[in-house]
């Protein structure tokens, strides 16, 4: 017996050295996760009587859900400990060998930016389909006047649709997936500046998402106050709303941590020869986005914390009945959320700025102008937030300065469109799928950008605010803009990420169905909105019937088209052509290495002596690419 104990202790000592393998980041993270789970359960159990849904069954149920999740995790940690202490190999933890090569690295705390990028990629894509499902439920309800679902169900659908699309699809896909995968490669380095923080920012996403989704289990359902969560309505949302706030808080931290990491990486890790004005535009876009995330997201974190305290502990912050000020929420929320809309579009602009030169065989027209426009948009985006509040009870004359800044922000946006056209002119254009989606963004964003100017003009906005016109605007910029750029980015970088080419014909079908479905769905929304149909209506006046039916048909077509994308990807893994290192003959650095790249990206450190888009050079130094033919 004693002998056993002695061996056990020796065992412990012998293995103590190996503790770091489990990863301090990993264990700290598990602990944090546990705390979040337990904390949620606690907070919900303690919600004071009188808040709308403080009924015992509900809080108990949620407490139990959280408890089960927490205990499950705890067990996993304990098993890991025992396994480690007894010297057997932990089946949960991949070996170093597996971390390098096997599929299992995607399910563990990898610190390789490419693995993290791919983790983000599949996670966001998964949520794109969940969010899309919610959208189709919304459009199903609105296809005809009258009610199919209950208003409360409907309200959950539109709230979860926007929440998922914004926080779990567009932001993590653009910044998390493409940013993570491409930025270190594009600046010619081997990884992000802080690989463990990088893993942390990814691993905050699943728990954040789970917490928000846990609302589906609650008796009163998920959050249903809209993605903007205006109090006092939001204060009556009960458990679903509290989960929403917690989840958004966790996701917010993911953005902040990720943003800092990108900034340091871009400032400090550029390889020799890559000075600031040799950075591809996508890197500039991610840098600007990172600044917005670092400066703006804390405001969101503060806002949701205050609202959580308001609901859970009865603080008066936004509660007019207790002397609080519901308008304050709108200011704090939009101070983050306007910059956030640029977090959602600048990387998309970045992707398009990569794709257009490659497929036109010309340098980006007005590279510096585009850099300045990106930075200018970044600065201005902090000065326009109140344009979301023109009809609120805000001090009336404040509307004029905010109208001015809003009109100004349209200028750098216009400059970008102009420069993309300039890149096309006199080029040698190939219309492959990435290019088609990019050109679609350019044309659709004109409509979305100018509809923003309608909304920025106070007298016009007082008519259009909170109608379907705003919904149309949002979708022209976020679907016609961000999502189209994401699709373009998928077709463009998929070969690099997975070593397989996507099928072009399927890509083109996907493109045309999406483009048509998109316009059938969202163009008529301008009209319904201008006619006066408010947004967030579960039912509507029969005058709006035909237009709504058209919209719903377009939406289902658009939804269907996305299945083709999935099919194309799955097919590529089976029978797709093996991708060469540089299938598009591009000049940015990610194409200098194999597809997919080796663990540390490049066989040896790079020295760069060319600009990212100089397609005209026939003779180049040995480090640069071979002849830019095609």
């Amino acid at each position, binding site marked *: 017996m004693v002998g056993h104990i002695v061996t056990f202790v020796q065992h412990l000592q012998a293995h103590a050295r190996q503790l770091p393998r489990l990863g301090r980041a990993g264990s700290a993270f598990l602990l944090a996760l546990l705390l979040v789970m337990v904390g949620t359960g606690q907070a919900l159990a303690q919600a004071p009587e009188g808040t709308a849904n403080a009924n015992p069954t509900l809080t108990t149920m949620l407490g139990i859900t959280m408890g089960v999740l927490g205990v499950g995790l705890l067990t996993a940690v304990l098993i890991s400990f025992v396994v480690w202490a007894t010297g057997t190999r932990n089946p949960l933890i991949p070996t170093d060998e597996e971390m390098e090569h096997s599929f299992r690295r995607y399910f563990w705390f990898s610190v390789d930016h490419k693995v993290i990028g791919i983790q983000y990629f599949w996670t966001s894509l998964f949520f794109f389909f969940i969010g899309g499902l919610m959208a189709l439920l919304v459009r199903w309800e609105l296809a005809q006047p009258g009610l199919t679902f209950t*208003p409360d169900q409907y309200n959950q659908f539109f709230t979860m649709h926007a929440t998922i699309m914004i926080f779990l699809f567009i932001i993590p896909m653009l910044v998390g997936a493409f940013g993570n995968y491409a930025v270190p490669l594009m600046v010619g380095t081997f990884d992000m500046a802080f690989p463990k923080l990088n893993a942390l920012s990814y691993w905050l996403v699943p728990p954040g998402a789970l917490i928000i989704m846990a609302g589906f289990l609650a008796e009163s359902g998920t959050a249903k106050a809209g993605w903007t969560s205006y109090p*006092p*309505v939001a204060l*009556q949302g009960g458990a679903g709303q509290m989960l929403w706030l917690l989840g958004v808080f966790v996701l917010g931290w993911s953005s902040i941590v990720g943003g800092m990491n990108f900034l340091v990486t871009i400032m400090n890790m550029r390889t020799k020869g890559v000075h600031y004005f040799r950075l591809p535009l996508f890197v500039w876009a991610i840098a600007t986005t990172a600044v917005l995330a670092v400066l703006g997201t804390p405001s969101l974190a503060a806002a949701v914390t205050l609202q959580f305290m308001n609901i859970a502990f009865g603080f008066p912050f936004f509660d*007019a*009945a207790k002397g609080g000020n*519901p308008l304050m929420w709108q200011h704090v929320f939009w101070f983050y959320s306007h910059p956030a809309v640029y977090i959602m579009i600048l990387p998309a602009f970045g992707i398009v700025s990569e794709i257009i030169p490659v497929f036109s*065989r*010309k*340098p*980006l*027209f*007005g*590279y510096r102008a585009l850099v300045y426009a990106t930075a200018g948009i970044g600065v201005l985006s902090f000065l326009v937030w109140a344009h979301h509040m023109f*009809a*609120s*009870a805000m001090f009336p004359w404040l509307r004029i300065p905010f*109208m001015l800044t809003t*009109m*100004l922000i*349209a*200028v750098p946006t*216009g*400059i970008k*469109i102009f*420069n993309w*056209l*300039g890149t*096309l*002119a*006199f*080029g*040698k*254009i*190939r219309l492959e799928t990435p290019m088609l989606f990019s*050109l679609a963004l*350019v044309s659709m964003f*004109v*409509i979305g950008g*100018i509809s923003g100017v*309608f909304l920025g*003009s*106070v*007298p016009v906005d*007082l*008519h259009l*605010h*909170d*109608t379907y016109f705003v919904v149309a605007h949002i979708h022209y910029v976020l679907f016609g803009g961000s999502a189209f750029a994401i699709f373009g980015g998928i077709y463009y970088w998929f070969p690099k990420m997975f070593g397989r080419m996507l099928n072009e014909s399927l890509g083109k079908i996907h493109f045309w169905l999406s483009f048509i479905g998109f316009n059938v769905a969202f163009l008529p929304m301008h009209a319904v909105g201008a*006619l*006066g149909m*408010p947004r*967030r*209506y*579960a*039912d509507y006046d029969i005058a709006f019937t035909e237009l709504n039916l058209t919209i719903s048909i377009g939406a289902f077509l658009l939804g269907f088209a996305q299945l083709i994308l999935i099919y194309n990807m799955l097919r590529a893994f089976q029978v797709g052509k093996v991708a060469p290192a540089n299938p598009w003959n591009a000049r940015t650095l990610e194409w200098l290495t194999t597809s997919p790249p080796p663990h540390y990206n490049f066989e040896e450190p790079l020295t760069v002596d060319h600009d990212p888009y*100089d*397609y*005209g050079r026939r003779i180049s130094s040995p480090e640069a690419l071979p002849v830019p033919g*095609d």
Partner: protein
Amino acid sequence: MGGIPFFPEQASTHAGRIDLLFLFLLVLTIFFTALVAVGIVYFAVRYRRRHADEIPPQTTGNTRIEVGGMVGLLGLSMVAFFWGAWLFVDLQQPPANTLEIYVIAKKWMWKYEYADGQQSINDLYVPVGQPVKLTMTSQDVIHSYFVPAFRVKQDVLPGRYTTLWFEATETGTYHLFCAEYCGTNHSRMVGSVIVMEPAEYEQWLAGGSGASADGEELFTSLGCASCHQTSGQGPGPSLVGVFGETVTLQGGETIEADATYIRTSILDPTAHVVEGFEPIMPTYEGQVTEEQLLRLLNYIQSLEQ
């Protein structure tokens, strides 16, 4: 009827002017959308790749065109700004002779209190050709008063008053929507605005129950009248003619005696103490309902010099 397809009819003095600006922006949109679309299609066809080894001209930009484009865009956006600002300033201030109507929003209905004691629910009655000013508050969450045919919208908040004005130009019945998401039955929080000939309106009003008389009764029964004597001799300032005037407060600050000021003075009397008076008034917080507040307001407003 409005001239723009897919636009609601124009039934207020605001409508035509806002639509003109809308139309201007619409023309800009169509112009730029067409320009970019034609540009893309033209370039895609004209400069489509022909041989593998032709090298297109490697232009990297053109500062002159760049600056020109920027100045052009800036010019256009400033036209939009000044037009919008001018129109906003012009439309923001109601004319002096407005008809005052009080609105209470609650989940999920609209209630109205008219000057002569008439009341109505969901449907607002107004005379044609006269500016109407709504003073609105909510009993619970934020709602928004939206009449598409008038091109007006204003959020309605709990705990404070917001105002909205319009002048109907056509008799008829128009949609009223709640535009700010207010929970479960948001989409059922709808009503009509019924615009009538002035004579007809007078007749409708006369059917009322005399709520400003109610206001007077409240003024006495709540004990307001004992301090705020019309003679000005009481311990509180006389309220005759105070509505809409500028009041000097202790410390020399001045404030306009609008609906919000009167509301605050009733619910939180020490917030604004009138110069020359002691802060002795008790608070009526919790003792008067939103409706009673509006009736008091109605009454105070009717106290002409």
